[in-house]
C-alpha cells in the first residue's frame, strides 16, 4: 500500500468513524447512565434502540405520520416504555430477591421479548430501509467523502451530548440523578425520590437510544437483529471506564474509528470480532478504562 492511499484511508476511516462513533457514544451513554444509578448493565439497550427504530418506521412509513409528529411520538413511547419497565418489573424483581444477578437476567428477558414482539408484528421479518430525513448528497472533508446525512447525524449527536451535559451539570433533576449514582442512601436522606429518579433515568436513557436509532437507521438496513450493535456500545463504555459519561463519549468515538480502520485496512468481515478484541485489550492494558477511577468496594 503506498503512502497516499494509506493517508486517504486514514482520513476516510477517521471521518466515517466519528460519524458512527457518535451513535455508539449515544448508546454507550444510555448504558452508562443506567449502570451508574442501578448497577445494572442493561442488556436490553440494543433492543430498546431497535424497537424505537421500528416504532418510528411504523409511524413514518406505514401511518404516513409527518416527521414533526413521528419523532416526538417515538421518543415519548421509548421514554414511557423504559420508565414503566423500571417501575413495574425491576422494582418487583428487587423486592423478590435483591440480587443484582436477577436484575440483569430481567433485562436479558426484556431484550428477548422486544425482539420477539418486533418479529411478531411482521415488520421485522424482512430487512427494511428507513427514509432519510436529510439529503444524502456527498460532502468532502479533507479527502474523505461522506454525506450530508452523516454531517447531520454527527451534529445531532453532539447536540444531544451537550444537552445531557447541561442536564447533569446545571439542573436539579440532573444533579439528583448524579447523587443517586454516587450514594443512593445519602441521596434519599436529602429528599430525593429514588423511585422517580430511577424511572427518569431509564426513560432518559431510552430516549437517547431512540435518538441513536433515528440517526443511524437511514444508513443501515433495519432488521430485528440490529440491536446487536449494542456490543459496540458495551465495548465503548468499557473503553471509557463504564461509570464515566465523558468516557462513554470518547469510547464511542474510539470504537467507531477503530471499527472503520479495521474495515478499511484489514477486512470488513473482521469487524464482528473487533468489540471483543477491544474489550480484552482495554482490560489487559488499562482495566479501569480511559476515564474510570478506582472501583469502590461495597461494604457489607
Amino acid at each position, binding site marked *: 500500500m503506498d503512502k497516499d492511499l494509506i493517508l486517504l484511508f486514514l482520513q476516510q476511516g477517521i471521518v466515517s468513524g466519528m460519524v458512527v462513533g457518535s451513535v455508539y457514544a449515544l448508546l454507550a451513554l444510555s448504558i452508562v447512565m443506567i449502570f451508574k444509578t442501578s448497577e445494572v448493565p442493561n442488556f436490553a439497550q440494543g433492543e430498546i434502540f431497535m424497537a424505537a427504530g421500528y416504532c418510528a418506521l411504523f409511524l413514518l412509513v406505514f401511518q404516513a405520520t409527518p416527521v414533526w409528529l413521528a419523532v416526538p411520538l417515538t421518543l415519548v413511547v421509548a421514554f414511557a416504555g423504559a420508565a414503566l419497565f423500571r417501575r413495574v418489573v425491576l422494582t418487583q424483581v428487587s423486592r423478590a430477591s435483591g440480587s443484582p*444477578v436477577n436484575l440483569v437476567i430481567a433485562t436479558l428477558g426484556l431484550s428477548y421479548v422486544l425482539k*420477539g414482539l418486533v418479529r411478531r408484528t411482521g415488520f421485522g421479518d424482512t430487512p427494511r430501509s428507513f427514509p432519510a430525513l436529510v439529503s444524502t448528497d456527498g460532502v468532502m472533508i479533507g479527502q474523505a467523502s461522506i454525506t450530508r446525512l452523516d454531517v447531520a447525524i454527527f451534529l445531532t449527536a453532539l447536540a444531544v451530548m451537550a444537552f445531557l451535559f447541561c442536564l447533569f451539570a446545571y439542573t436539579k433533576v440532573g444533579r439528583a440523578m448524579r447523587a443517586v449514582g454516587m450514594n443512593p442512601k445519602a441521596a434519599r436522606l436529602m429528599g430525593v425520590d429514588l423511585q422517580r429518579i430511577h424511572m427518569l433515568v431509564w426513560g432518559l436513557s431510552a430516549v437517547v437510544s431512540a435518538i441513536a436509532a433515528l440517526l443511524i437507521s437511514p444508513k443501515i438496513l433495519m432488521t430485528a437483529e440490529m440491536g446487536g450493535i449494542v456490543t459496540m456500545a458495551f465495548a465503548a463504555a468499557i473503553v471509557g471506564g463504564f461509570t464515566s459519561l465523558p468516557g462513554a463519549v470518547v469510547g464511542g468515538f474510539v470504537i467507531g474509528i477503530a471499527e472503520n480502520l479495521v474495515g478499511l485496512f484489514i477486512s470488513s468481515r473482521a469487524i464482528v470480532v473487533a468489540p471483543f478484541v477491544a474489550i480484552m485489550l482495554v482490560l489487559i492494558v488499562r482495566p479501569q478504562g480511559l476515564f474510570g477511577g478506582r472501583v469502590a468496594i461495597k461494604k457489607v
Partner: protein
Amino acid sequence: MRFLAIAVAAAVLIALPLVTTGYVVYLANLLLTFTVLCLGMHIVIGETGQFSLAHAAFYGIGIYAAGIAGTTFGTPFPVSILIGGLAASAIGFVIGMVALRMRDIYLALATFAFGEAMQWVFLNWNAVTGGPNGLRIAPARLFGLELVTDKDAYPFVVATAIAMLVLTVIVARARLGRSFRAVRESEIAAQAMGVPVRRTKVVAFGISAFFAGIAGGMFTLFSTYIHPDSLGFQTTILVLTMVVVGGLGSIGGAVGGAIAFGLISELLRQAPSFQEIAYGAILIVFMMYAPKGLFAFLADRFRGARHA
C-alpha cells in the same frame, strides 16, 4: 423424598431406550447434554453469582474440539470428550483472568462479546470448522466399538451426565463450593475469611466452561453434524432460561429446569415466532415472582396451602 426422586429418575433412564423410539432417545440425549450445560451455568451464576454469557461458545468449542479429535485423529471418545472440556476451560480461564480484573460485570460483557466473536470464528475458519458448510462428525469409537445410533450412544451420554452431576455435588460440598457461595453472598466477608475472591471467580468460570466443553463432547457422541447457527446467543439464553426455571442456586433446580424446560422448548418449536417472546417473558416473570425457580415456588405454595 430425595431417595425416591433418584429411584424414579434411575427407573426412567433405564426404561427409556427399551420402550421408546429413536426420536425420544435422541431427545433424551440432547436433554442430558443440556443438563450438563445447565450444571455449568449453575456453578458460575447460581453458586458464585457471576455471569457467563458465552456458554454456547464454550459448548461449540467442545463440539469442534471433540469432533475434530474423533473424526480426524480417531481418538477414542472418552479422550475426545475430555479434549473438548479441556479446550473450553483453557480458553475460559484466560478470558476469566482478564475480564475479572476490574468489575464483576465485565465478565458478562466480555463473554457476551466473546460469544459473538466465536460464532464468527466457527463460521469463517473454514479449514478447521468447515465454516458455513458445518462439520460432519464421524461416529464415536472406543476399542472397535462404534456408536452409530442414538440408542448406542445413550448409555455413554447417561454415564457422562451422571459423572458430571456427581462432580458438581462434590465441588459444591468441598471447600471450593463453600468459597463460591461465600463470594456470592458477600465478597468482603469472604475475603475476611481468607477466600481469594478473584481467583475463586476465575475458577468458577473456568469450571463452568469445562462443563460446557464436556457437554459439547457429549453432543458428538450422538450427533453427526454441527452448524454454527445453533451455537449463537439464543443457545446461551436457552440454558439460562432452563437454570432460571429450575431455580438459581440449586443443583436439583439446574437438572429439573433442563428437563422441564427442555421439553417445553421442544413443544415451542411448533411456534418459532413465539419462542423468543416466551423465553424473554419466562425470564422476566420468574425474576419477578419466583426467583428461586418453579420447584421452590410450587413447594412454597403447597406448604402455604397446607398451613392455611
